[in-house]
């Protein structure tokens, strides 16, 4: 999967956790999950688990703590997919 494909799938993962559908539609690699998408921090682990299930990878917390914006989420997922 290339980064664009991962981004498209990531949008679907993030959708249940943000009410700001306009921001979600326009996300790019710099979009911050908490500040821009207004995702509650209590949902961050849900997003990690959903990503693990979607891509059939395991994301440990050393990786997960980097997942603060869309670009870093894609980095982590791409790296895990390539392992």
């Amino acid at each position, binding site marked *: 999967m290339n980064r664009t494909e991962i981004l498209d799938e990531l949008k679907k993962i993030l959708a249940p956790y943000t009410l700001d559908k306009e921001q979600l539609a326009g996300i790019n690699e710099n979009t911050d999950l908490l500040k821009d998408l207004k995702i509650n921090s*209590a949902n961050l682990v*849900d997003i990690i*688990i959903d990503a693990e299930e979607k891509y059939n990878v395991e994301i440990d917390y050393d990786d997960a703590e980097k997942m*603060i914006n869309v670009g870093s989420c894609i980095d982590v997922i791409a790296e895990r997919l390539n392992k």
Partner: protein
Amino acid sequence: MTGIGNDLIALKAIDVPRSRNPRFYAKILSIAELDLYHRQFAHLPLAYFVWLAWSLKEAAYKCLQKHQPDLVFSPTKIEIATLIPPAANRQPTINREIISIGFTDCFVGIIQFQHDVVHARSVIYGDELIHSVVGFNNDFENVYWGLKQIDKNDPASQSAEVRAFLMEKLTELFPGRQLNVIKHASGFPFILEQPDWPLSLSHHEGWVGYVVLLPY
């Protein structure tokens, strides 16, 4: 050093089966904290303990982040060193609003992150809410706090409501004083005219809450 952080968890919003899944809670609890649950807190539903731990760690992060703006929230690296359950058996309840000072009948904890040690108080309100507050000092006597249920749960309404709720309290305590709550470049709120009064705001689903540490 002064500072304060808070966190709220609306228990009706949590996914209980997922919270009890080892894949989920292993991203929040350390092995030592899971052991602590089995030794001392097995009377609590595991899902509630997982979210109690989360709220303690998030509140600790918010307290520390004001002094370390680049800090990244990493739940398993913020450790619950000790946690003592409330002495009373009765379960606190909450209606739509509660405003108070200090804490009684609460969980009392010490949280550690690298070389920093902070002190915690938490209350579980039945099946409704977990509220955690963390400060640098083990003295919560001058911690003024409020929790309120609101009808809207979109981030803009939550943010506006919690600020209005805090301002009601500040206006009551300091009538006639011009006080404005604004956001720091690093994202945390502070009182423009009194940046030395630590405060923290939190919201989850239909609940909002503030804490402010006043000098008297």
